[in-house]
């Protein structure tokens, strides 16, 4: 499957997290929030000004800026309905 940037995912779409090309403290925080390889992630809500965007991951809603989601790579999950519906 082709990897795309998390920022390219459309609202409501869900995907499987594959790679985080971010280092340092920022990466650690992402890991703490549960941004672990092979986790399911879904786009939940965009800020009124278009950025940041909130994502569902591991049952929590986490907001990230585009600079970060540009460097997170995911595989689109065609079948899964995501966490909105279980």
């Amino acid at each position, binding site marked *: 499957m082709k990897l795309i940037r998390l920022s390219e995912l459309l609202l409501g779409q869900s995907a499987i997290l594959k790679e985080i090309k971010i280092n340092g*403290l*920022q*990466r*650690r*925080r*992402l*890991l*703490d*929030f*549960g941004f*672990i*390889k092979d*986790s399911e992630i879904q786009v*939940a*809500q*965009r*800020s*009124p*000004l*278009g*950025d*940041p965007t*909130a994502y*569902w991951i*591991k*049952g*929590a*809603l*986490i*907001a*990230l*800026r585009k*600079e*970060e989601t540009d460097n997170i790579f995911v595989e689109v999950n065609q079948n899964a309905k995501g*966490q*909105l*519906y*279980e």
Partner: protein
Amino acid sequence: MQKANYMSNTCAIPNNIAQSREQVFQINLSKTHHEYVIALAGNPNTGKSTIFNALTGLNQHTGNWPGKTVKRMEGKFRFHDRHYRLIDLPGTYSLLSTSTDEEIARNFVLFGKPDVTVVVVDSTCLERNLNLVLQIAQITNNVILCCNLIDEAKRKSISINQQSLEHDLGLPVVLTSARNGDGLDDLKKSIEEIITGQIRPQPFAISYPDELKEPVETLVSSLRELFPTLPNPAWVAMRLLDGDQKIKESLDSAELLPTLLNNDSSLATESHHLPSPSNPSVNTIFKTADHLSRSVQPVMHDLFVESLFLDAQRITRRAVTKKTGIRIWDNSLDHLLTSRIFGIPAMVILLSIVFFLTIEGANIPSQILADWLFQIEGLLDHTFNYLNAPWWLTGFLAHGVYRGLAWVISVMLPPMAIFFPIFTFLEDFGYLPRVAFNLDRLFKWSGAHGKQALAMGMGFGCNAAGVIATRIIDSPRERLIAIITNNFVPCNGRWPTLIMLASLFVAAAFPSALSSVAAASTIVFITLFGVLVTLLVSKFLSTRTSLRGESSFFQIELPPYRRPQFLRIIYTSLIDRTLLVLWRAIVMAAPAGGLCWLLANIYVGQYSLFAHAANFLQPMGQAIGLDGVILLAYIIAIPANEIIVPTIIMGYMAAGQMTELDSDFELKQLFVQNGWSVMTAVSLMLFSLLHYPCSTTTMTIWKETKSVKWTVVSNLLPLSIAFAVCFIVAQTWPLLF
């Protein structure tokens, strides 16, 4: 329930673990011999503070962590004739990163050695929360897992199998819904069972990734050799491999060693015989660690956290079942409050409602309080006269010091007592992180952090509280920007001036049907102007000064909306915020009142000092559309902005004390007689919005930054902006109108 898995019947640990420890290093906990120390850890937004409040009731107090500006909550409770001291650790997602909060939480569990550590988790989000549980269980055995918000989980058709969790984690597990008081007795019972040794948890040992096994083992054997009693060498080895500077410091300092090592007091007293600072063997371990970590470092943290999450995932899968086909995300509120179309308008409307409730709600209590306090001034006056006190003593104490104090309290206390609970309500409800989410793009543009919006929100109540609230911003650069610019949101002490000017001068320029709308719009406009200045100054600071830098990352959790807890709100906003601000009024406003009286009553030649000073400031005042009396009032009111208007009136009437007029009509007449126009009012509103922080805020800035330079900048920068803006208004106004 079968507890055999982690329970030992030998009861080898006597019930006097607490007594055996003479002191708790670094944490400065002076404890009595019969108190057990319980630490409360957990992710943010798990209802940890609800558990804390439910256990301790009103029996709690706040302080700071030693050497840190982080608030520390502590409380006491009794259960079955045992006394417990409960320490609320800062909410953290992990103990592995490097924030101050995480360091505090980790150091307390490690060096403070609580008798029991309760980890509170959100039952609806167990998998991610288990990450922290597993980390804490690596440091200490005496851990209880408290699955809170179990009611919310039920609503979302999530059920948790307690036995399975206990079995897999090797820890006692209690299910609670602290908000409804459910499960708290089970929690206390579990605490007691660990204290008495009826239960001895044997936490599940996390599986280290293969790549790390060898380096960890190498370090563990050297650590064992040097510190034979170290309770958790594998954990320390992991931290060393991760290049954790704090752990190195702790190992290197003899001061901390005993607490690291001992499980009984005899070792603690022998601390002198332990390896001394910079002991060669300690250094050898560090060198080995550095060497080993070079080979694993880039992937080490990932590997470790991933393996933690795999464990967490495995355990959760066995213990948690969700009914399928049910829509669990019922947060349609977010479609409104953070939506593209309604998000920002909803925010402005909410803000306006908060202002409206604060201003309108405060009117009557303010009046009652003022009447009552000024009656006391009359009584004071009579008493002094009766005792034949000299006139200057009566004047200074009753009409100066006391009047200043009474004024500030009656103007300030009611709006504070309304504003802060409403603000805490929004905080509890979960709305505030959404404000940061909504506005982050603007702050990113200005090189700052979206969380700055929260500190600004707090600043509407009190700028000193706003400056303290900037602690939630991790990056020191972004935090300094937030501190310096907090002054540009008008606080409760400035509202009355703004409202009075808006209604006396701006609203009066409109037909009466529109006047109240005009006044309200003026206030909203001034507020938005303050926000604009904040963004521009932040942009300036992050592009042109030594605070230069790109905006760092923004990662924020948006917790589910939750029903706020009214009693807790009232309690915390009273204790934390209103009383703090009230205290400031007493130490700051009273001297200002005294000074004001002295200036007005000491005469040099024909005029009072006040008049001389006002005359001196007159040209400068006029250049910026104001006058000498107003500028002087601003100088006197540095400690408390609330006394601006009474001081101005005093100056115009050449009265000997701060004065208020009975009607708005008289007030306006007095101002107009002294040359005020709509321009004066506009300049004054802008000056009031921009000028400089009050002395309490300045002191808070100094305390938070520990830097004279930034404290001075926080005063001079706003002052120059205020002068520049008012100068431009004063010079262009006549050309326009």
